[in-house]
């Protein structure tokens, strides 16, 4: 992910990864924008129920209307009784889980408030990798025979199962 317009991102638990800078940061410069970002992001995080990120209740995600279509899709989808949003969108381990939540919570709040995100919302590489891992964790038995070649050269579940979470 690192590259032009990217910075190393420090999460609450230290170095997490490189994050592509959003358009306003690239445009107005890092320093000036960061203060604004933190302010706006924190504000939304609190008022806009960004705290939802810390719960496991899918309805909480739908606090943001831009998550509504996923929520609606999930309600009627095959995983409704099986997996919540966070089951697919946050890592299993505790640190990874809250790092992801914090990062997503912060950035989503930021984007939501500034309205600068691109639509339709598309899952980005970091979150995609999280989700791909989550499929394999729940469906280990089912797909053991497919992904067990140990090369790490595995292919994407979502390539075929792009509709599982909430349809499209």
């Amino acid at each position: 992910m690192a590259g032009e317009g990217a910075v190393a991102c420090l999460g609450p638990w230290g170095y997490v990864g490189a994050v592509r800078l959003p358009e306003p940061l690239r445009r107005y410069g890092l320093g000036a924008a960061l203060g604004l970002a933190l302010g706006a992001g924190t504000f939304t995080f609190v008022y806009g129920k960004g705290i939802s990120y810390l719960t496991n209740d899918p309805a909480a995600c739908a606090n943001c209307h831009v998550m509504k279509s996923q929520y609606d899709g999930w309600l009627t989808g095959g995983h409704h009784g099986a997996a919540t949003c966070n089951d697919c969108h946050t890592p299993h381990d505790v640190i990874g889980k809250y790092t992801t939540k914090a990062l997503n919570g912060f950035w989503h709040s930021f984007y939501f408030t500034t309205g600068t995100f691109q639509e339709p919302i598309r899952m980005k590489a970091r979150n995609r990798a999280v989700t791909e891992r989550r499929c394999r964790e729940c469906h280990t038995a089912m797909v053991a025979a497919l992904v067990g070649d140990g090369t790490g050269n595995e292919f994407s579940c979502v390539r075929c199962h792009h509709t599982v979470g909430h349809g499209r």
Partner: protein
Amino acid sequence: VSIFERKQEAREPYFRVAEITDTTVDPSVWGRNFPYQYDAYRRTVDQIRTRFGGSEALPRTPSGADPRSIVAQSRLEEDPRLRAMWAGYAFAVDFREERGHAYMLLDQTFTERQRAAAQPGTCLHCHASIYVAYRTAGGGDLIKGFEVINPLPYAEARKLVQHPVTCIDCHDPATMRLRVTRPGFIEGMRVLMASRGERNFDVNARATRQEMRAFVCGQCHVEYYFKGPEKRLVYPWANGLRVEQILAYYDSVGHRDWVHAKSGANVLKAQHPEFEMWNQGVHAQAGVACADCHMPYVRVGALKVSDHHVRSPLLNLARACQTCHPVSEGELQARAVRIQDNTYRLRNRAMEALVALIGDLEAARGAGRSDAELATARGLQRRAQFYLDFIEAENSMGFHAPQEAARILGEAMDYARQGQVALRDRAFRPNLP
């Protein structure tokens, strides 16, 4: 914008501040109730070019006869073979890339085609907000008004309208539901459905919402002709929407648009059959409507509204395509352009074949061969030319139905080359559909 406003918006989509009725033509009045749609609607003045679509803004010196200071690029200059194809018809004089809806009335009024031939009021059916004018002229009756305005000289009819297509042409003012207001389409759908065994089809009563998202466009983006001295606008769909079905219709009523100046053949001009071609593609089969790609949803705060800046989806790939195709914009662009490039190459081959046949016919005529001797080849020119023009005139360069576009161009070559054989061999019996 603060988050308070966002939550607010979700609950209160719009206020009806202005009264709009079934006679409110002026879009700025509607725009007071629906500012997002109106603002976007006005942006159809933008001119940006894509590889095969959009349009280029070319400056010109305004004249008395044509006050436009900006026009779109000339397609005749881009490909002079078009002049050979249309020799003797007004299209050989002036034919430009089409641009946004904002220009439709202007471009129609001032195209040189107006001066090359006398045009009737019928033209306005698709270039103006004419719904209210029809109703007024018909004393409340839409169809009657249509019949009154069609035969008027263009200049006279032109005085009855002021706006390009506006809100009232696609929307019911009371409910904002989509509706079709164009007699040509209403009657065209009736004959089409009759050919499929459904009598007295009433499109406004029967169409689903999703169908309406294509039908409002099908009001104008279709092949058409002017029937008889009353210049009635007719969509030639009595046998179906495929090119051979349309040609069969024209053959059955003995219609020709003009006599080709070089070859003497009775030929036809195809015009923007987007609706017909879209119907042959996998998108239509999957229920994807024009508005899904050309007016995709765009979020304004908490609201989702249809982007009334109708334009090339290639200028708007994320919204126009990514909702359905979860791949990058670059990849989507590549898929579309590959289809278009393939079509374009084949179109050029077909153009070569047609121009060769026209050249042969011209030579044979010059050599004094009789009409009887030329009849078969002329018939083949009529067919080849209509097929080729069907794709040439269709504005997506094959995207709306890639396989069908290639099929039609392929057949066009078959007919054109058979015409060349026929000219050289009187015993030759062509293979028609």
